[in-house]
C-alpha cells in the first residue's frame, strides 16, 4: 500500500488547493451585496425573465447530433495520419464506420430531427 502514498498526498494537495482557493476568496473578499449586484449580469439591462429558462427540446436534439458527427470527424484525424499503413483493411474499416453513421444520419433526417419547426 505504501507505494500509493504519493498519490494520496498528491490527491490531498489537489483537493486542498481547489477548496482552499474558493474558501480563501470567500473569507478574505469584501462582501457588500445589493439587489442589483445579486442579479444575473445581462449587459446592463434589467433581466426580463428567469435565467433558468428551459431550452426548446429541438436544441438538445441538434446538439446531440452535432456531437455525434463531430466525434466522427475527430475519429477521422488519427485515422488519416496512419491510413497508409492500415492499407485496404483500414479503408474498409472506416467505410463500415462511416456507413453506420450514414444510416444514423438518414434515420435522423427521415425522422425529422433536422427540421427546426
Amino acid at each position: 500500500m505504501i507505494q500509493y502514498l504519493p498519490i494520496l498526498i498528491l490527491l490531498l494537495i489537489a483537493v486542498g488547493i481547489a477548496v482552499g482557493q474558493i474558501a480563501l476568496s470567500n473569507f478574505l473578499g469584501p462582501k457588500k451585496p445589493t439587489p442589483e449586484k445579486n442579479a444575473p449580469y445581462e449587459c446592463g439591462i434589467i433581466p426580463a425573465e428567469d435565467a433558468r429558462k428551459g431550452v426548446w427540446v429541438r436544441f438538445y436534439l441538434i446538439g446531440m447530433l452535432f456531437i455525434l458527427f463531430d466525434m466522427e470527424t475527430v475519429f477521422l484525424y488519427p485515422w488519416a495520419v496512419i491510413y497508409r499503413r492500415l492499407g485496404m483493411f483500414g479503408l474498409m474499416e472506416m467505410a463500415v464506420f462511416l456507413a453506420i453513421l450514414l444510416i444514423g444520419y438518414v434515420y435522423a433526417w427521415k425522422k425529422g430531427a433536422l427540421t427546426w419547426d
Partner: protein
Amino acid sequence: MEAIERMINLPSSSFQAIAPEIILVLGALFILVLDLFLTRERHHYLQYFSLAFIALAGWYTAQLWGDTGFHFYDMIIVDNFRLSIAYTILIAAGMTILMSGPYIKREEVDLGEYYCLTLLATVGMLFMAAAADLIMIFVSLETMSIGVYILAAFQRYRVASNEAGLKYLLIGSFATSFLLYGIALVYAATGHTDLDGISRFLTNNPPAGDKILYAGIAMLVVGFGFKVAAFPFHLWTPDVYEGAPTSITAFMAAGVKVAAFAAFARVFMSALHPVHDQWAPALYWLAILTMSLGNLVAVTQTNIKRLLAYSSIAHAGYLLIGITAGTSEAASAMVFYLAAYTLMTMGVFAVVIYLGHKGEPNLTLYDFAGLGYRYPLLGFAMVVLMMSLAGLPPTAGFMAKFYLFRAAIREDLVWLVVIAVLNSVVSVYYYLGILVRMFMNPPEEEGRALPAYVPVGVTLAVSIAGIILLGIFPTPWIDAAQRSVMVALGMR
C-alpha cells in the same frame, strides 16, 4: 505501432467468432432503415425480419459449436459456454420479439425502434457472454443496458413506464460505476484487464492479502449483483419490472439476467478462480440472502409482475449457488438452469400479456381467479409453468435445480443447499397459490374473451414444450450443458 501492424494481419476467421453479433447489428440497422420506408400497416414485417435475423444468428452460433480460442487480442472468447449462453439469449430475444408483436400494437407503441433496440441489446448480451476482457465486459454491458433502459421507458405515454426507465437508468449508472471502479482496482492489483492475464497473474503470484484486489472484487460483485438483481442491489427490480412494458420485463428477467450471469460466472469462476476461497464466503451469504429475501417478499405480493420480480430475485439467489460452488460442473448446471429459467420466464410473461388490458392496469392475483376453468389450455400452461418455477418434477425447473444443487453438494455446500431447498418450499406457496386462485376460486367478473394473440400463443406453446422436454428428456440437454465448459484460462 507494432500493435497496429498486427491488426492489419487479422486472420479472417476472427470475424467468424463474432459473426452472430455482426449479423444482429446489421439486422438492427436494416430494421431501422426499413422502418423509415414502411407504412404503418406493414409494421409487422419488422417483427418477421427481426426473427429472421435472430434465426440467422442462431444458425451461425451453431456453426461455431465446438470451437475454442481467443480472438481480437483476447477480447473475444469462443467456447461452448459462450455458445450455450448465446443460444439461451437468442431464444429469449426471439421469444420476446415473437410475443411483442400483438403487445406493442395493443399498447400503441408499435414503433420500429422497438425491434432495433431489442436486437442491439441482444448484441450487448451476446458480447457479454463472449467477452474475455473486463473492458469488453463493461462495453457490452453498457451496450445492453442502454438498449434496455430505453425499452423500459418505451411506453412514453405511461407514467409507470417512464418511471421504470428513469429509475433503471439512474440506479443502473450508479451500479455501473461500481463495476468500472472494480475493474480499475483489479487492473491495479494484477496489471491486466484480460481475463486470461488476470488468471495467469493470480496463479503465478498468489495474492496474500492484497487489499486492492479484494476491494476490486467486492466492487465487481456489486456491479454484477446489480445486473442479476442480488440482495441488496435488487431494490430497483420490482419497480422496474412492474413499470416496464411486459414483453420488456420478460426480456430483462431472462435475457439481461442470463447475460449478466454469464459474465459474472466467467469472471469469477474462471479468471478469479485462483482466489476462489477468498470470495466464495461472501457469495455464499449473498446467495442465501438473495433467495430468502426474494421468496419471503414474493409471498406478500399481490401484483403479478412484482411477484414475478421477486421470484426472479429468488432464482438469482439459486444461481449464485452455482457461482459459489465454482466448479465446471456448477457452470454447466448454471447453463442448464439459465436455459430452463428463460423458458419459464418467457412463458409466464406471455400469460401476463394474454391477460393484460391496454394501458396495463395493475394485474393482480385476483385477476387469475377462475381462469383455469374458463381457459383450460391456459390453465394447463400455468400449471406447467408454476410447477417448473417451483421446481417440481417432471419439469425443467426441477431438473435444473437438481443438477445445480448436486453440483453444490459435491463442493460440500450442504447447508447452502438445505437453505435453498427450504426456500423452494416457500416458493411453492406463492406459485401454487396462483394455481389455487385459477382453479378453486370463482371468477371475479364475467368473462372477457381472451384476445387471439397467435404469436403470444406460439411463445407460450414453445415455452411449455421446452419445459416439458427438458423435464422429461433432460439427458441430451444435460449432455450439451456438460460440454458447455469455459475455456481454461491462464494456460498460455
